[in-house]
């Protein structure tokens, strides 16, 4: 045990006498909780009052529907490729319109989606964006696979998110 001459650690006595008596400190704590009781509450009573998120919120991914009722998507398949959860399935087809390609089938499996927003980030056409929709409940697995009918959302409803993306991308 020779050479083991580390001096014993000194404890810092940081409590003053008033703190050692303990009761004043308890009174302080009690007064804090009492004041908190009369403060306004943070709780939102959910089904009646709904939380409306900001543009930065990543809800369920949706396809942008132009004003003429067509989707922006050109079925390049990048979103499907980048999706870490393998939730997106795209099948392309040709069209006579100017963009030449469109998704014949576009499905997102909402049981797999992890709301990472990679699909939105990688999309060259700004065709898939994250919406503000967070109310996602299904009663069976088939309902959880969203096809084009559920995914297409008019562009004016997604303006908040698109503005957010343009200002920060």
């Amino acid at each position, binding site marked *: 045990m020779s050479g083991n001459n580390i001096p014993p650690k000194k404890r810092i006595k940081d409590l003053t006498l008033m703190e050692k008596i303990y*009761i004043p400190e*308890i009174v302080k*704590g*009690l007064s*804090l*909780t*009492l004041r*908190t*009781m*009369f*403060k*306004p*509450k*943070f*709780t939102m*009573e959910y089904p009646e009052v709904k939380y409306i998120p900001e543009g930065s919120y990543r809800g369920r991914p949706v396809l942008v529907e132009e004003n003429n009722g067509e989707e922006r998507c050109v079925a390049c398949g990048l979103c499907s490729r980048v999706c870490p959860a393998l939730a997106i399935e795209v099948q392309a087809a040709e069209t006579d319109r100017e963009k030449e390609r469109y998704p014949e089938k576009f499905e997102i499996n909402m049981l797999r989606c992890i709301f990472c927003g990679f699909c939105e980030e990688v999309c060259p056409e700004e065709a898939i964006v994250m919406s503000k929709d967070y109310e996602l409940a299904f009663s069976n697995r088939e309902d959880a696979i969203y096809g084009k009918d559920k995914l297409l959302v008019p562009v004016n409803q997604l303006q908040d998110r698109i503005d957010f993306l343009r200002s920060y991308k």
Partner: protein
Amino acid sequence: MDAIWNFLWAIISFYNFLLIRIVIVLVLMFLTAAYLVYFERKISAWAQNRLGPNRVGWYGLLQSFADVFKLLFKEDIVPDNANKKIHALAPIIALFVAFSTYAVIPVGPGITIAGYEIPMVIADINIGILYVLALTSVGVYAITFAGWSSGSKYSLLGGIRSSAQMISYEISMGFSIGGVILLSESLRPMAIVESQSGLMWNAFIQPIGFITFLVSAFAETNRLPFDLPEAEPELVGGYHTEYSSMKFAAFFLAEYANMLIASTLIVTLYLGGWQIPYIETLGLPSGLVVALQVAGFFIKVGVLLFFFIWVRWSIPRFRYDQLMNLGWKVMFPLSLFNIIWVAVLIMIFKL
């Protein structure tokens, strides 16, 4: 027909309507215990900037009944390792102790209705305080039995902690009561209340005794700064880890009933019981005075119950060694000093 009526009347009016008084007290206790759970949840929510239960009934007032019915419909699980008889006995002891202690607490002065003199206490016995102390000591068995018979290490630890804690704090509790008894010269709760007329409340005469008794009461009821027997983070749930369904509900109810008893006991011993200072000088009719005094008793108890809940949501739990240090090195000498203090007061002022 007359004979049956007379027989029934004899039963009902037996010992100044004892049965009716018992029923009233039992119903009141069950209701208060149920609503304490509701207020516990509400006040905890307010202290944390939340709203608390507000869905079942008007402002969530039926929440406690929803909780009780949920527990009633749950499966009653008894672990394989448990000692089944003692496992079933423990919650019964807990409830028995919680409800029988209330028999000696006076709610108000006696009143006379239609020739019947009705005392506002179930049993006005002359060793009432001794009875309370004896029963609260039996309460330790409920928790220790529950912890031991469950056959689980967490329950056992909770039970051991509880017995150590309750025995250490019972000593300072008993010595604090010593000061009260010196002043009232009686163990009868009614006499103790009557000795605190005017502003001669024991809380003012012997503040140290009041504080030690208050702290010991927290420890005796296993309420939060001292709820080591059921410390959730370390012991899962302590002594009631292995309980479910109505047996768990019995422990739950007993905890709140114990809180009620501790509050009524503190009011009786230190805060003048049902007495309102100088109310007799106002010249009110005697019936109104009695009603006001009973209301005053319940208000005092209500304020103390709020205090119990308030403290629970403000102060963190003690460590086990801190608890023992506080009990033996602070509370015990302070309660002894309190006895000397009271004795000196009696010597000097002939109180």
